[in-house]
């Protein structure tokens, strides 16, 4: 019909959003910081000048020098090398917790939000889980089984699951009222096809943001657990362990706490800034204004 103006095809939203000029410098700095930390973790053996676990009693509590960039700890281990290796554990715990919360939280949330019959039952279980303080739960679990990276990940993930479930469920409760979901029902869609085609995509944005926060929280909790001495074994370099061992010598050598704390802070700050940037990017209203 000639009376219809037809809009020219625009470049797709995703590609244009990759144009870096659209991001705030803070977001770019956060991304760069995270990239450096990830590379540091991956290439730890190449970067670290010394072994992170090799003790050298003759070199205890050394100040910063060319030999030991950030000095050494009370057992003569190279602090810089330990921080570099510590990134591995921190990132593993963060990624593991985020992935775990996704794998368990997303399906439970979808089921709870879509099948109204199961909803009250699932939600009461989740409420129960939320009533347990996260750190206490982790302490109890680690007291029961051997402290290791997987144990710590599990201990941190379980309290995060209800948060993800609630988020997915809330998003689904509003999305399922959308006319396009009813349209899918009238077109003969099965519950599974409607969940996958119409409801799952609606959870992607809030979920991505939530998972960045889980990631950051997990790193923080792992550090706290290690600092308390109930996390991963003291010989494994983690940021929390380094700070814990530096605690006793704070008056003599405060750098032993300050360096890992600085890296931890930078890491958490970057993740949270990236989370905020994702929220702005994935916010449909924001996108509409940009289009």
């Amino acid at each position, binding site marked *: *019909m*000639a*009376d*219809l*103006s*037809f*809009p020219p*095809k*625009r470049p797709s939203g995703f590609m244009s959003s990759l144009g870096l000029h659209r991001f705030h410098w803070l977001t770019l700095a956060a991304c760069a910081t995270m990239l450096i930390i990830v590379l540091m973790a991956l290439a730890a053996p190449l970067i670290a000048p010394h072994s992170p676990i090799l003790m050298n009693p003759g070199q205890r509590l050394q100040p910063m020098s060319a030999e030991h960039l950030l000095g050494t700890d009370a057992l003569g281990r190279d602090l810089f090398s330990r921080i570099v290796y510590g990134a591995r554990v921190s990132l593993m715990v963060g990624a593991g917790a985020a992935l775990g919360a996704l794998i368990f939280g997303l399906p439970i949330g979808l089921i709870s939000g879509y099948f109204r019959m199961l909803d009250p039952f699932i939600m009461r279980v989740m409420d129960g889980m939320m009533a347990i303080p996260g750190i206490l739960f982790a302490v109890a679990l680690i007291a029961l089984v051997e402290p290791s990276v997987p144990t710590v990940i599990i201990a941190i993930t379980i309290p995060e699951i209800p948060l993800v479930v609630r988020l997915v469920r809330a998003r689904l409760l509003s999305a399922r009222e*959308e*006319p*396009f979901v*009813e*349209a*899918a*029902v*009238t*077109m*003969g*869609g*099965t519950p599974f*096809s409607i969940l996958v*085609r*119409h409801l799952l*995509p*609606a959870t992607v944005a809030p979920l991505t943001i939530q998972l960045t926060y889980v990631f950051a929280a997990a790193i923080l909790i792992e550090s706290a657990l290690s600092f308390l001495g109930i996390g991963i074994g003291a010989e494994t370099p983690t940021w929390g362990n380094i700070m814990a061992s530096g605690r006793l010598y704070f008056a003599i050598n405060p750098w032993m706490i300050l360096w890992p704390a600085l890296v931890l802070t930078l890491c958490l700050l970057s993740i949270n800034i990236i989370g905020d940037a994702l929220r702005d990017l994935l916010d*449909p209203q924001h996108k*509409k204004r940009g*289009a």
Partner: protein
Amino acid sequence: MSADIVSAAASTVLSVRDLSVTTASGAAVPILQGVSFDIRAGQTLCIVGESGSGKSVTSLATMGLLPKAELSVTGGAIFLDDENVLDASPARLRRLRASRMSMIFQEPMTALNPLMTVGRQVEEVLCYHTDLQAGERRARVIAALSEVHLPNPEDMALRYPHQLSGGQRQRVMIAMALALNPRLLIADEPTTALDVSTQRQILSLIKELQRKHETAVLFITHDMGVVTDIADNVVVMRKGRVVEHGPVANVIQAPTERYTRKLLGSIPSLVPPMPREIVSERLALEVAGLEKTFFPGGNPVRAVQDVSFKLGTGRILGIVGESGSGKSTVARCVMLLERPTAGSLVVAGSDVAGLSREALRMHRRRIQMVFQDPNRSLNPRRKIAQTMIEGPLNYGAPKAESLRKAAELLELVGLPAEALSRYPHQFSGGQRQRIAIARALMLDPEVIVADEAVSALDVSVQAQVIRLLKDIRERLGVALLFITHDLRVAAQICDDIIVMQRGVVVESNTCRAVLTQPAHTYTRDLIEAAPGRDLDQVSRRWESYVHDID
């Protein structure tokens, strides 16, 4: 009109001169270009135009409410009693609002604070702008509420917005807007969300108060019928420019611009065309004794009571009624989106009311739906192709064949096949509704249920979509159940009509009989309340302009 005699001597309250507005960020896209008009005390000026014409931007600029981050005034002046509003400081603007000019909005539910009693909200205006004592304020609130004819104003003042009806809420908004006797009242589509009979009461209330207080009214609407009922002067706007401007009688009776003629010609007539002959005796849909009872908070609400009708293949049956009449519930029950409490539902010869889940899924392909708001009935994240072929894929049709069919159907509704690779937001509202109609046809249904399918569209687009639906019925012989609150639309498309009121069918006959010889008083009231009844002849004169290219 008597207002004309008054206005000869009356002073100019609002004078908009060469107002230009552009977008503030990026390339300055013009939104308003050289808009000028005057309103005198006691007069009503209607700005009429379709969505995107800039009519709301004009009113926001007058109130000093333009979102500064997005829109900026690039030229012109807005004089309110010789004071240029555009030069006023924010503090001065705050004083001007409510005391010298005030505004009422389309949706009174969102414009009122749900957590405050309405009396308190009216009082707040007095708190900010007067030095009255509490006792005097309360007396003024009661006086304001009784002036807008709310029953028991003392009792009303203590109620919360959700305890009032839509019409009562709009009355509260008017009481609030006029509490300080402003010189100018801006009404931005104040009756669009209301039923026709409520709309008529609100319009006459605005007129009455205007006459009493000599208020100048800037009335924004998309509805030519409302214009003829209320305006002294009319400004027709299109794409940010004034197309035509003059006294209502001139603009309506002798429009000089093609666009005005097109707008007038697009108004559906209340007089239905001659009835079509019944081509097939076959029944596509038969509903008998349909009941639906909801239990909000445990108390039964009988939304639909004993509704029965028959819809033949190739026929269009309209269900008309005001909000709360149960017409949408009937549609949802017919679609089995709600399970009816009782009654039988026969689609193409088989009873479907008690089907099992899997049998119901197999049945759904025979009856499809077109929803009111095409922005929300198409998944914004999925391409048109994915949306179109979803139904056939659900029933196991091969993908390539479904895509071919989707392209054909898009062509049928007047869109090129390239549309398949785009997303819904790349289309206008009318185009999206065409896509929704094409999607409903993908499964070759026997019946299409259209629930207010043209209500969200501009009048010229509405005319095109109505034509499309009739055309599809003609070509494919599908039966159409057409739910609408708009008698004019119903008159143009339906063969038969049932009129519903509070869940009950009050009248059921051929379209022509219902509209020309209504048997029930409620139907008569509805027809009586339809705005701009004298527009029909004018409208028919410009019918050919409907096909104008934008």
